């Protein structure tokens, strides 16, 4: 099983990300941890459209099940695209 994105996210721990879910909820926070299923734990979270989601007001840390994630929005300088590109080419070659 390939762990390409798991390894990539591990290197992003500590960075600010915005996770957009399939139910359209978007949460901004610091990436605390990730696992092989791409489950995500965020710290210091704020919901993007807070007024629409009053129940999330006092939530500061959360666990997000990998299966419900649509996007993970990254800081533009958080992506070493060449490193990721090389790793992908190696995987594709069967390495």
């Amino acid at each position, binding site marked *: 099983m390939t762990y390409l994105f798991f390894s990539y996210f591990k290197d992003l721990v500590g960075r600010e990300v915005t996770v957009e879910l399939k139910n359209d909820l978007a949460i901004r926070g610091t990436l605390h941890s990730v696992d092989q299923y791409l489950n995500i734990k965020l710290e210091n979270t704020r919901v993007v459209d807070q007024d629409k989601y009053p*129940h999330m007001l*006092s939530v500061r840390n959360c666990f997000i099940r990998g299966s419900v994630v649509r996007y993970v929005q990254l800081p533009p300088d958080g992506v070493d695209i060449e490193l990721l590109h090389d790793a992908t080419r190696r995987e594709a070659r069967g390495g």
Partner: protein
Amino acid sequence: MSWAGPDDIFLSTSLATYLDKKLLVLLRDGRKLLGLLRSFDQFANVVLEGACERVIVGDLYCDIPLGLYVIRGENVVIIGELDLEKEELPSRMNPVSEAEIKRAQKAEREATDLKGSMRKRMEFLDFD
């Protein structure tokens, strides 16, 4: 979730750090359950003790008690840790009885259905 060693629990995605804490669990069907986490597994199956469903309609809300719940992991969207020092809900929200929130839910559902059926009729007439 991977099972981590004893020193790793503070760095891993394990739900162990949430044990015995009051949590908000968001489900795929939009329900919001609150309760104390008593158990979990690698599928994010979860056991909540003293669970209640927080039903919110506009500025009205009601916590409906449910008791001991086992939630199948595939339904879980988010598990959020509630900060006990912060208000769980904005001050504009008003608690109401279960009967009243159910009436409000029904009214909201009927309004959405009406909006949907009117839209369908307009689409049929092909207005721009």
